[in-house]
C-alpha cells in the first residue's frame, strides 16, 4: 500500500486505489477501540447535469436529487437498514454536501460487518413509487423546517449576492417545485450512473488494519459487480466566478437583524496542495483580522456590535468555487458592515500585522493537531484533502509553508471590499423600513 506520514505527529495514512477504481484511505490507531468510516460518493447538490459518454447533451437534474437519493437509500425493501446497523451496535449517518454524498458508520469491533452494511447502504438501491412519494413529503417538511432559521436562510441568501443563478445558492434539499420532478426512475438512473467504484472513496480511522480494510473492500466489491464497471456517465462542475457583490434583504421572525457578508474567490479553479494552501492562507488572514484577539473583535464586542456566540467567519475554497462568509446577529447591521469593510480596506492597503498573523498560524496549528484526537474528524479531514486533489495528510506540511505575504495576497484577491456581497435578515415586523443601507 502507499503510505504518507507526518513525522511530527507520528501519524501515517495508508492508501490504495483498487482495480475497480475505489480509493481506500486508512489511518490506523492501534490503541483505540473504536473505528469510524466514511464512504464518499462524488455526487452532490451542485451536480445538476448528468453527461453520458461523449454526447454533447446533458440530462438536467432537478435541485435536491442527490439529497433525495441519500434519504431513499436507507430504505431496502425489507425495511430501514438503520436497524441492521443498530443490531451490531453500529452508528450510521449520511449527509449531502455541495460536491459529495457521505455515508458514515462507526463502532467498536465488527468492522467487516460495518463495511458490508455501509456498502449495502450506498450501493444496493430499492426505489418504489410509494416510498418516493412519502419521501417527498418528508423532505418538504425538512425544507419548511429550515425556512425560518436565520443562519440557514442567511447563508444561501449571501451566496446569491455573489453567485446569482448558480446551483450553489439553492437549498441542498431542493425546493417544493423541484421535489415534484424527482421520481423513482430518475433516482434509479442517477444511482446507476454515479454510484460506482470509480466515483467513490472510503476513509477509515481507528482500530483497524489497513490491509484488512482493503481485503474487506475487495470482498464487498465482488458482491456488487456493477460497481466495477464505469457507467460512462459523469457530472461536470464548471468553475463558478463571483459577480460584484449585490445586496439582499429579507424578513424572518427573528429578534435582531442577522448580517452575513460574503466574498467570492475570483481565482477559483485551483486543486491539490495549491488549493489547500490558498484556503489556509485566507483562513489565517480572516483570523488575524476578525478573530477574538483582533482589534476589530475587541472594539466591535465592546461596542455591542457582535456577540461571541453568533459572530463567526469561514472560508470554503473548493475546486470549482471559493467563498468567505462572515457575520452574525447584530442590533446595528450598518455599523457592523462599516466596521468590517473599514478593517478590510485598511488591511488591503497596509497588510496584516506580523504578530496577528503569527498568532493565527499558531491557532491553526493547534486546530490541525486536534483533528487527530477524533476518528470522526480524522476521516472528514482525509476526505477534505483527497477530494480536492491533495495528499491525505498534507495539511500540516502545507500549513508550515504559508507565509505572511501569501496571506496578504489572498486577502487582496478575495477579501476586497468592493467584491463584498451583503445579506441581511431583518425582524419580520421591521422589514418594511429596516434594510440597513439602500440597495
Amino acid at each position, binding site marked *: 500500500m502507499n503510505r504518507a506520514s507526518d513525522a511530527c*505527529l507520528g501519524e501515517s495514512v495508508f492508501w490504495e486505489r483498487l482495480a475497480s477504481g475505489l480509493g481506500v484511505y486508512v489511518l490506523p490507531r492501534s490503541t483505540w477501540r473504536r473505528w469510524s468510516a466514511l464512504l464518499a460518493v462524488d455526487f452532490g447538490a451542485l451536480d445538476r447535469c448528468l453527461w453520458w459518454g461523449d454526447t454533447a447533451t446533458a440530462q438536467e437534474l432537478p435541485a435536491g436529487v442527490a439529497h433525495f437519493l441519500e434519504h431513499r437509500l436507507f430504505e431496502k425493501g425489507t425495511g430501514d437498514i*438503520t436497524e441492521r446497523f443498530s443490531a451490531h451496535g453500529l452508528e450510521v449517518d449520511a449527509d449531502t454536501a455541495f460536491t459529495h454524498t457521505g455515508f458514515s458508520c462507526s463502532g467498536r469491533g465488527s468492522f467487516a460487518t460495518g463495511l458490508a452494511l455501509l456498502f449495502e447502504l450506498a450501493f444496493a438501491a430499492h426505489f418504489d413509487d410509494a416510498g418516493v412519494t412519502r419521501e417527498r413529503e418528508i423532505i418538504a417538511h425538512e425544507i419548511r423546517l429550515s425556512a425560518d432559521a436565520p443562519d440557514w436562510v442567511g447563508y444561501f441568501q449571501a451566496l446569491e449576492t455573489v453567485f446569482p443563478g448558480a446551483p450553489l445558492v439553492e437549498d441542498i434539499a431542493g425546493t417544493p417545485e423541484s421535489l415534484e420532478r424527482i421520481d423513482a426512475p430518475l433516482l434509479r438512473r442517477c444511482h446507476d450512473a454515479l454510484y460506482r467504484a470509480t466515483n467513490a472513496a472510503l476513509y477509515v480511522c481507528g482500530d483497524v488494519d489497513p490491509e484488512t480494510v482493503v481485503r474487506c473492500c475487495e470482498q464487498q466489491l465482488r458482491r456488487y459487480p456493477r460497481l466495477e464497471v464505469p457507467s460512462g456517465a459523469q457530472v461536470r462542475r464548471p468553475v463558478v466566478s463571483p459577480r460584484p457583490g449585490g445586496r439582499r434583504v429579507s424578513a424572518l421572525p427573528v429578534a435582531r437583524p442577522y448580517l452575513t457578508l460574503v466574498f467570492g474567490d475570483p481565482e477559483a479553479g485551483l486543486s491539490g496542495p495549491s488549493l489547500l494552501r490558498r484556503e489556509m492562507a485566507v483562513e489565517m488572514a480572516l483570523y488575524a483580522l476578525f478573530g477574538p484577539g483582533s482589534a476589530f473583535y475587541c472594539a466591535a464586542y465592546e461596542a455591542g456590535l457582535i456577540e461571541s456566540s453568533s459572530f463567526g467567519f469561514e472560508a470554503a475554497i473548493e475546486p470549482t468555487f471559493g467563498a468567505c462568509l462572515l457575520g452574525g446577529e447584530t442590533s446595528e447591521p450598518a455599523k457592523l458592515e462599516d466596521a468590517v469593510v473599514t478593517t478590510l480596506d485598511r488591511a488591503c492597503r497596509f497588510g496584516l500585522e506580523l504578530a496577528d498573523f503569527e498568532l493565527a498560524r499558531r491557532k491553526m496549528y493547534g486546530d490541525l493537531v486536534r483533528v487527530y484526537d477524533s476518528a470522526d474528524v480524522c476521516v472528514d479531514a482525509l476526505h477534505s484533502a483527497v477530494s480536492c486533489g491533495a495528499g491525505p495528510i498534507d495539511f500540516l506540511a502545507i500549513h508550515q509553508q504559508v507565509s505572511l505575504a501569501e496571506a496578504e495576497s489572498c486577502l487582496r484577491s478575495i477579501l476586497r471590499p468592493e467584491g463584498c456581497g451583503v445579506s441581511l435578515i431583518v425582524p419580520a415586523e421591521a422589514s418594511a423600513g429596516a434594510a440597513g443601507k439602500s440597495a
Partner: protein
Amino acid sequence: MREQAGDLGSFELGPATYLHVDPRDDLKTIRTELLVTEELRPGRNTRLALVARLLERGTRRLPGLRQVSRFVDELYGADFSVSVERLGAYQALRVTLETVDPRFLPPGEALQERAFEFLHDVLRDPMVDEGGFPVQAVAQEKAALANLIASQGNDKLAYAQRRCRQIMGAGEPWALSVLGEPDDLPAVDARGLLEFLHELLQHGRIDVYLSGRLDPAAGVQQWSAFFDWPRRPRPLRPDRDRGRVPSAACRTIREPLDGSQGRLVLGYRTPIGIADPQYASLALLNQLWGADAQSRLFRVVREQSGLCYHIASDLEAASRLAFVSAGIEPRDYEEVVARIGDELGRIAAGQVPEEDLRSASALLQTRLMALDEDPAGLALFDYQQRLAGSGRTRADLCAALAAATVETVAEAAAGLCLDTTYLACPRGAELEVAE
C-alpha cells in the same frame, strides 16, 4: 487524600474537592475541565450566567478580552471557555482549557505551566475594579446576555422545548434557564457578582477532570496546591424526588408562533432518576421509543406516515423528565400526538420484539464504551453519575443494560406520565387547530 472508585482515577483533595484523572498516551491534547457546583435557585442562575461571561473577559495579568484571546492563541490555539452546566437541580460553573501536548510543539514551550497559572488566575485573580468586576464590562455583559435571551426565539424548536419546560416546571429548579432571566438583570451589580463568585468558590463542590499524557501523582500534587483559599463546602442536598411517584398536570397548551411550521413538544415525568436501578430500562425505553433513526417514532411517524422531518424523544433523567419534540403541520397535530402516545403504549404493553431490545442495548453499550476515546464525554458521564450519587461505572451500566428485559422496559414506559402537550402554532393556523 483518598482514591475513589469510578471510571477514572479519582482523588479527594479536600472537603468536596475532587480530582479525576484519565491518563492516556494516545491523545494529542491535554484537557482540563473544572466544575464548581451548587444548588440551582432563582436569581443565582442569572448571576452565574453573567459571572461565566465576565471570567472569559480578563484576569488581573491579562486585563481584557483581547489579551486573554491572544494569550490562548499563543498557547497554539488552546480551547478555552467558561460556561454554565446544568444538571437537574444543580448548576455548575465550568472552566475548560484544552492545549496541545508539548510532544507536538517546538521544544522549550512551557505550555502546561502557563496554562495552569492562567486557570488559577481566571478563578482567583480575575479582572476587578474597586471591589467588583469592572462596571463597564458588567454593563456590556448584561446587555449582551439580554440580547442572547431575546434571540433564543430564533431557533423555533428550542424555543418550544424551553416553553414546555417552563410551563411544566413552575417553581422547579430545572425549569430555570441556563442563561438567566431578563428580569433579574437590573438588580445585579458589579460588586455583588464578585461576591457571588467568591461565595461559590468557597462553598461549592469542585470537580477537576484531567485527560491526556499525565502522571496522576503529579496531577494530585499540582492540583492540591491549586486550591489555596479557604474552602467550606456546603453539602448538596440529595435528590429530593427520589422514590416519589410523579403527578402530572395533563394540560394542553397552544401558543402562537411567528414561523413556518408548528413545533410540538410533549413533556413527561418519570419516577426514575439516574441513580435508580431502573435507569438502564428507562434509557432503553428512550432508545426504542424515539432517540434515534431506528426508533419507533422515526420509523412510524416520519418514515411510514411522512408526517414530519424531525421527531425525537429526549431523556433528562437528572430531572426525571422526558420530552418528545417534532416539527409538524398544525393540521396533523391530533394524529401525531396520538401516534406518539400509541407507540409509548405499545412499549408499556410489552410489545417489543426481543431483537429490537437487543439492538437498542448493543447501541447504548457501544456508545458508553466509545467514551474511551472521548475525554469530554467520559468526564460528563462521570460527573453526572457522581452528582446523582450513583457511583455507577460504565461497566456497571452496560451490565444493567444487558440485564434489562422487555418487562422492565415496559415498567419504565408505564411509569411515564404525560404532563404537558405544547404546540407552538404558526399564526393563521391557530383556528384550524382549534377546530
